[in-house]
């Protein structure tokens, strides 16, 4: 840890001085906390209907108004955050696991293993993945876990390329050669020696994958192929908002605003993290 601490403490120092990134990070933390605490802080249940009230504009009782069924919009956005963020993190996790293992194995073993594995990645890059996710959703039904898996299985390609590139640089360095000479097994080589040294780029790319994943989920939900009612994500809220935007524009504007701000925050934080961990790229 002592060897790494200078890199990480340097990075943290640079990150804290980047105002845009810190603001993004702050918004994210606030969002995650309010999503976790949704059952306690949401003023109403996400399914509570006040049919007599119907759609009402923002008021003291319903800060962001209510939808056609008289459901409190603020509460629905808070509960929607749980689904949207969960998809973002879990699917990114799936992509990380596949991409990192694929990249490490290809980079470390090199030679024929590498060329076959990377050729597969090249071919997959050329495929219309969005269509495949839709296909999977159609065939197997819109199951939340399938959604995680399908999106994760789409997003790992770039990660595997990044990791492979890093591992190829690392594997000829003395400490790796020394570990090899001492007879360290492949698995602990990956875990103890390679992985800790490529955490930086992995962390950066992961933060930038989360918004992409959330976009994909809301895209599917918007088309009616993702999250199904009564569950709601930000994508389904925007879809509902679009359907009634002529009379009740707040139903589109607030979920849309929340989603956009979140994407901004993630992108700024990701960019900041990249600059902090790799000062060379800052100029571009």
């Amino acid at each position, binding site marked *: 840890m002592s060897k790494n601490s200078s890199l990480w403490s340097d990075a943290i120092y640079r990150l804290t001085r980047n105002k845009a990134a810190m603001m993004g990070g702050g918004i994210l933390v606030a969002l995650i906390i309010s999503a976790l605490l949704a059952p306690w802080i949401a003023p109403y249940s996400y399914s509570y209907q006040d049919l007599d009230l119907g759609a009402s504009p923002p008021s003291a009782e319903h800060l962001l108004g209510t939808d056609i069924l008289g459901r409190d919009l603020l509460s629905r956005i808070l509960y929607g955050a749980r689904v949207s963020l969960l998809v973002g993190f879990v699917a990114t996790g799936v992509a990380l696991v596949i991409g990192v293992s694929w990249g490490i194995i290809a980079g470390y073993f090199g030679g024929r293993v590498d060329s076959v594995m990377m050729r597969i990645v090249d071919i997959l890059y050329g495929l219309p993945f969005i269509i495949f996710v839709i296909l999977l959703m*159609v065939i197997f039904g819109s199951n939340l876990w399938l959604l995680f898996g399908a999106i994760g299985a789409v997003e790992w390609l770039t990660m595997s390329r990044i990791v492979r590139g890093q591992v190829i640089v690392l594997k000829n360095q003395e400490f790796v050669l020394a570990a090899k000479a001492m007879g360290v097994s492949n698995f602990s080589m990956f875990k103890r020696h390679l992985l800790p040294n490529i955490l930086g780029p992995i962390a950066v790319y992961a933060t930038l994958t989360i918004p992409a994943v959330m976009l994909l989920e809301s895209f599917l939900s918007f088309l009616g192929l993702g999250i199904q009612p009564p569950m709601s994500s930000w994508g389904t809220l925007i879809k509902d908002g679009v359907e009634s935007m002529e009379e009740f524009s707040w139903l589109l504007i607030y979920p849309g605003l929340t989603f956009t701000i979140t994407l901004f925050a993630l992108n700024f934080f990701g960019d900041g993290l990249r600059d902090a961990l790799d000062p060379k790229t800052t100029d571009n």
Partner: protein
Amino acid sequence: MLAIFIKRVLMAIPVLLAVATMTFFLIKLAPGGPFDAEKAVSPQVLKNLNAVYNLDASQWEQYTDYMTGVVQGDFGPSFKYPGRSVTEMISSGLPITFELAMYAILIALVIGILSGVLAALKRNTMLDFIPMAIAMIGICVPTFLMGPLLVLIFGIQLELLPVAGWGQLSGDKILPSITLGFAYAAYIARLSRGGMLEVLNQDFIRTARAKGLTERMVVIKHAMQGGLIPVVSFLGPAIAGLLAGSFVVETIFQIPGLGRFYVEAALNRDYTMILGTTIFFSAMIVFFNLLSDLASLWLNPRSRDV
């Protein structure tokens, strides 16, 4: 050079075959048959239907039959709209989607390159900051939000432009094209800014300036050729993205294009339609990826070695 071209083209064929095969068998995995309609059908009718649609043959036979058809441009019948073939639906939707995509990419290229190049030349001035801030918005606001917002502002509040349709009212093509093109304009602006900045610092630009060329010539003749390579490589993946965008835009604006057919087929579980359009889309994407690959190879001789 020619060898690389041929190699890339040949690589596309197994990819397409794999996609078609995978899609075909995935669709076969789907639960329920095409005729599990609301009303139960008598066994005799079902048997006849299966015979008509060749569903009683073995899987392998169905597969080879289908693939032979596809090669000849026949994607089979639609299961949800009796009497219409998938090929018919593709050929009725394709021109519309194609036109939409062309307008979008045109908007994206013109706005994106102009603002990107300008931002690079006027680095760290308002002409750099403002377009790049707008580009950030274009990247963060998803199409399915941008479209409805534009409709809300220009269609409903200001009543300037039609809110839906394609080719029926004057000006109804404007909002869909902008909606689809905006995000790409943003990406292209960022890419061309980055590419230009990298090139503008290089020696050959200094040489061009030193030999007395006008700034205009330096930028257009020398800098842009290298600085816009990232844009060219981006165009292939952008076509794939445009396709996904057309699903959303055609749904929002109720445009009878290929994207809307695909989404409807997915929601209705019209399996043959999904199968046909998936193969068709894949072929298009592979084709455009190939095209942009070849174009960037041609523009950038250095990448030929790798």
